[in-house]
């Protein structure tokens, strides 16, 4: 065989096997066959190169090599004898007969190779089994020992099938355990979920009872409605619902005049409606006296928006907060749990009953959530509520007492804030819940005239009273402020910025603006005083209690300390000026570097003035740049020059390597799928770092050094001396 043929064969085999294609290229195959036809030597050579490729740890290579082999197997007797002689190895490499040598990745290709190889072996056996004994033996080996079912579509061996079976069984067991755990879980928490559901139902019922306008009669006949549970008991002297009602009454009248208002809708109104009816039943006399309205008949325009809307008020606060808690409980705990159970049951194919139960639970939970969203509850911010819970309660208590105090409600449209309130505004650092309606309501509440009979418990009046009470209390901030106001009537009146307080104002400082604000320090502490023992340190030479040497200098003067107590450090960092210049070094893509570093660009070094093309303006900079470029690339490695030399000598000096230095290694066979890429997991990366040779060595070194030190120190002790 000629050398050229041999080379060409190797080349062809390599090209075919590293193409990464599932099918061989027909042209190359034909060429290969043409060469092989010439002599048996060629086939010998081809056989060896194919076997070499079959030994590669890459299934795409193996698949292609196998395809070449099968092409030639049907054609050449010589190839058949060669291959059959080594059929054990061939089967190991293609069919995975040896479990210690699994087929290499990628997995899909391995599977394909396996099934293809099995099919091919079967067809070979049919064609040549009688003539080649070892082929027949191999086929029987696969069939009898490996128990490969050639009819099986996946051509799995018995071991694989067993593995599959095992896996299935294991999964079943796991599922069973899961189902058991889930059902037990469900048993445990079923009660709880039920309770939660009833509770949330009840809460929503309280907020929005299940009736429309037509049901009012039934509500009237059934006063033990949920609302009573929600609000104060009816047998109270002055039930709060009635108070509310009065408010609403007047508001209802306002609506007649001004039309409907936007903020009170749906539920709120119905609430009030029913309250109204109850009230009528309750005591008409009180009503007439309070409202001054003789007639009960007035028309009421209701603007029922299609969506429900519940606003959180002080009255339903508790219910709403319970509702929120329940909602959170359902969304975060119960619903996910139930969904998990349903998933487990469906996956494991558990009993219908269990599944149905779980599904029912899920449905009811979801229904509850849906209802909750339909309610459109306006939540107030919870934080505030917590902070002012006490004061609110107090106010409520107040309500009962001074219900009939006639205090005009005027803060909404008063042009100026009364003096006593001013203090309040300045004082109160956080707006309270009760303050919020005060500021929030005025635009809404705009009756034609302040009704004299209108409710007495406007928040401001209550606050006023509250404030005066507070002022009596000397521990209160309000009391202090009142004291201040009395002492310094001028300053409080003149400047609303009364926060400028304290002794600095009272002392004779004329220009408060110019005075620097400095942090408090020792120098300020001793300002204007002579310190008697500054910088003196009492030196206790003897630590003993009473044995003291005679001639001891007990006190030592320390200059430094002395100076420190009188001096002050002032750091002067200067002011920040942003960088306005660019690096402007020419980049590879023709642009200029746009980095804005102050002195030095991390890529292009010292920033120097440059012209339009990015060349340095000054000569020496230009020279330096060129020098640097040359240093990077020694001139004997000049790519051009090397290419010339190569062209002349015919030897590869690696000019192509020089050209694209730093661009990463070129993949040898770009068509093959990269095995390393799939192996690039976090684990492997960590492994690379942790089991890095140098780092291992370093750690070992440190450890041994530590050991050695121990040995040095404690070598006279037997337990350290041993190691």
């Amino acid at each position, binding site marked *: 065989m000629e050398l050229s043929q041999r080379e060409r064969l190797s080349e062809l085999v390599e090209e075919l096997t590293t193409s990464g294609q599932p099918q061989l290229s027909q042209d190359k195959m034909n060429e290969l066959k043409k060469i092989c036809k010439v002599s048996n030597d060629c086939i010998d050579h081809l056989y060896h190169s194919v076997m070499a490729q079959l030994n590669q740890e890459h299934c795409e290579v193996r698949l292609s090599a196998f395809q070449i082999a099968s092409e030639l197997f049907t054609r050449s007797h010589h190839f058949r004898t060669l291959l059959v*002689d080594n059929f054990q190895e061939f089967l190991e490499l293609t069919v995975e*007969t040896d479990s210690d040598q699994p087929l290499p990745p990628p997995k899909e290709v391995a599977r394909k190779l396996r099934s293809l190889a099995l099919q091919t072996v079967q067809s070979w056996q049919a064609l040549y089994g009688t003539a080649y*004994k070892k082929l027949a033996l191999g086929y029987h080996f696969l069939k009898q020992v490996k128990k490969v079912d050639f009819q099986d579509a996946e051509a799995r061996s018995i071991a694989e099938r067993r593995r599959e079976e095992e896996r299935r069984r294991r999964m079943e067991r796991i599922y069973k355990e899961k189902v058991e755990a889930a059902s037990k879980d469900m048993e445990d928490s079923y009660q709880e979920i039920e309770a939660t559901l009833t509770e949330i139902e009840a809460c929503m019922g309280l907020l929005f009872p299940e009736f429309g306008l037509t049901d009012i009669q039934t509500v009237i006949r059934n006063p033990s409605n949920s609302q009573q549970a929600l609000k104060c008991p009816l047998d109270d002297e002055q039930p709060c619902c009635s108070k509310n009602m009065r408010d609403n009454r007047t508001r209802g009248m306002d609506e007649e005049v001004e039309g409907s208002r936007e903020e009170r809708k749906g539920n709120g109104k119905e609430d009030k409606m029913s309250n109204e009816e109850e009230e009528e039943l309750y005591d008409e006399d009180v009503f007439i006296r309070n409202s001054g309205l003789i007639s009960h008949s007035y028309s009421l325009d209701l603007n029922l928006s299609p969506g429900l809307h519940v606003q959180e008020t002080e009255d339903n606060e508790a219910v709403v907060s319970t509702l929120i808690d329940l909602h959170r409980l359902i969304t975060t705990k119960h619903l996910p749990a139930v969904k998990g159970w349903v998933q487990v049951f469906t996956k494991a194919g558990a009993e219908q009953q269990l599944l149905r139960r779980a599904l029912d639970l899920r449905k009811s939970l979801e229904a509850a959530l849906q209802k909750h969203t339909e309610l459109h509850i306006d939540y107030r911010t919870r934080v505030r509520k917590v902070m002012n819970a006490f004061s609110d309660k107090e106010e409520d208590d107040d309500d009962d007492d001074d219900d009939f105090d006639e205090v005009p409600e005027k803060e909404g449209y008063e042009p100026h804030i009364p003096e006593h309130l001013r203090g309040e505004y300045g004082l109160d650092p956080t707006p309270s819940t009760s303050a919020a309606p005060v500021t929030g309501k005025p635009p809404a509440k705009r009756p034609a005239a302040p009704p004299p009979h209108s409710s007495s418990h406007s928040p401001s009046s209550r606050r006023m009273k509250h404030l005066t009470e507070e002022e009596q209390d000397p521990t209160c901030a309000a009391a202090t402020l009142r004291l201040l106001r009395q002492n310094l009537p001028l300053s409080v009146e003149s400047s609303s910025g009364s926060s400028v307080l304290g002794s600095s104002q009272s002392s004779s400082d004329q220009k408060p603006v110019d005075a620097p604000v400095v942090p408090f320090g020792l120098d300020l502490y001793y300002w204007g005083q002579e310190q008697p023992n500054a910088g003196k340190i009492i030196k206790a030479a003897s630590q003993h209690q009473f044995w003291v040497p005679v001639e001891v200098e007990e006190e030592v003067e320390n200059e430094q300390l002395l100076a420190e107590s009188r001096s002050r450090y002032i750091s002067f960092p200067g002011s920040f000026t942003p960088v306005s210049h660019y690096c402007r070094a020419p980049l590879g893509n023709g642009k200029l570097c746009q980095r804005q570093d102050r002195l030095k660009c991390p890529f292009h070094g010292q920033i120097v003035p440059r012209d339009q093309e990015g060349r340095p303006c000054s000569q020496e900079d230009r020279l330096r740049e060129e020098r640097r470029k040359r240093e990077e690339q020694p001139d004997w490695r000049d790519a051009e020059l090397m290419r010339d030399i190569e062209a002349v000598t015919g030897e590869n000096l690696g000019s192509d390597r020089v050209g694209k230095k730093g661009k990463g290694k070129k993949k040898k066979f770009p068509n093959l799928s990269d095995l390393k890429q799939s192996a690039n997991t976090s684990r492997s990366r960590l492994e690379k770092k942790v089991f890095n040779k140098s780092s291992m060595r370093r750690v070992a070194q440190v450890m041994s050094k530590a050991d050695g030190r121990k040995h040095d120190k404690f070598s006279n002790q037997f337990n350290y001396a041993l190691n």
Partner: protein
Amino acid sequence: MLGFLAARQAGLDDPLRLRRAESTRRVLGLELNPDRDVDRIHGNGINTIDIDAIEGRYMLSGGADGVIAIYDLENFSGKPQYTCKAVCTVGRSSQYVHKFSVETVQWYPYDTGMFVSSAFDKTMKVWDTETLKPAEVFQFEDNVYSHHLSSIARKHSLIAVGTKNPKIQLCDLKSGSRIHVLQGHRAEVLSVQWSPRYEHILASASADSKVKVWDVRRASGSLLTLDQHNGDKTKASSEAVNTAHNGRVNGLCFTGDGLYILTAGTDDRMRLWNSATGENTLVNYGKVCNESRKKLQFTVSRGCSPEFVFVPCGSSIAVYALHTGELVAMHRGHYNNVDCCEFHPDYQELYSGGKDGNILAWVPVLHASDVEEESNSSNKAAANQSSVNPAFQDAWSSDED
């Protein structure tokens, strides 16, 4: 060949010389022959085979499934194509079948009417070939690894049995009882073998890496313990004193004349010992792959001028020249580990059984002489051959031109 014949005719040569030359030639021509098949009886691996010494016609095989089969090796059909039929089997349906893997089978050396088999079900059975029923069953406390009947014994009919117990048992066929134990090993005895030269000499190989030679008349202990370093204390570490191998010794075989002992161990070595002195002959056979946990049955050719050793080596059978240690050939045919091989001294055929459940017959192929007889040119022979079997033809299609 012709020269040998002429010399033989003229009486110049010893008749043995021609015979040896021819049998050597045949051994060297051993090949996996498509004409010779052995029935596939065993569904599992084959642990042991034995060819009877009287006629050389019947072969016993014991499989890992407990089945024992008897094959007829003689081809009376007159055609080259022959499948060795299983004459009879002790199959799984038989009530006397071994429960577990049969480890050793052996014909009674003087008659094919009886054979002995031992298995991992802790029994050794003495069978009547005619009825295929056990005439005697020896029960042991441990798994039986191997047993052996002396092929030349005239004064005793003892069966040496190596079990998991370190003591070697001697069973007497006459009385049907275990009459004697030989103590000395410290681990299971994997192989026992009677000397074909002296009827009272027994060799045993054990997992404690020792090989001992016993005289069964001497009760006190072994005659020899084979030492791989020949007693050179400097080479042996303290625990390796008197060991034959650096691992388990699982193969043991006397040469045909009984002058040498061959042992194989899991240290992938094979050693040749002088059986009279116990001296290691230090023949280097190279690496002989051996991963078996159980007995390895290998064999030595008989009647060749340099003798050959056939030893299983992974999934192939290695053929070494006995005294030079030269690797002569590597027979690849099994698809899994080979456990046993047996040489047929009359026809120079080799039979081997492996874990793939095949018994393969390696038959001498004498191409050259056949072809010479039939035709004058090799070209014609090729044409002839291809006309015989179309599978041997090349099938280049024309579209590749």
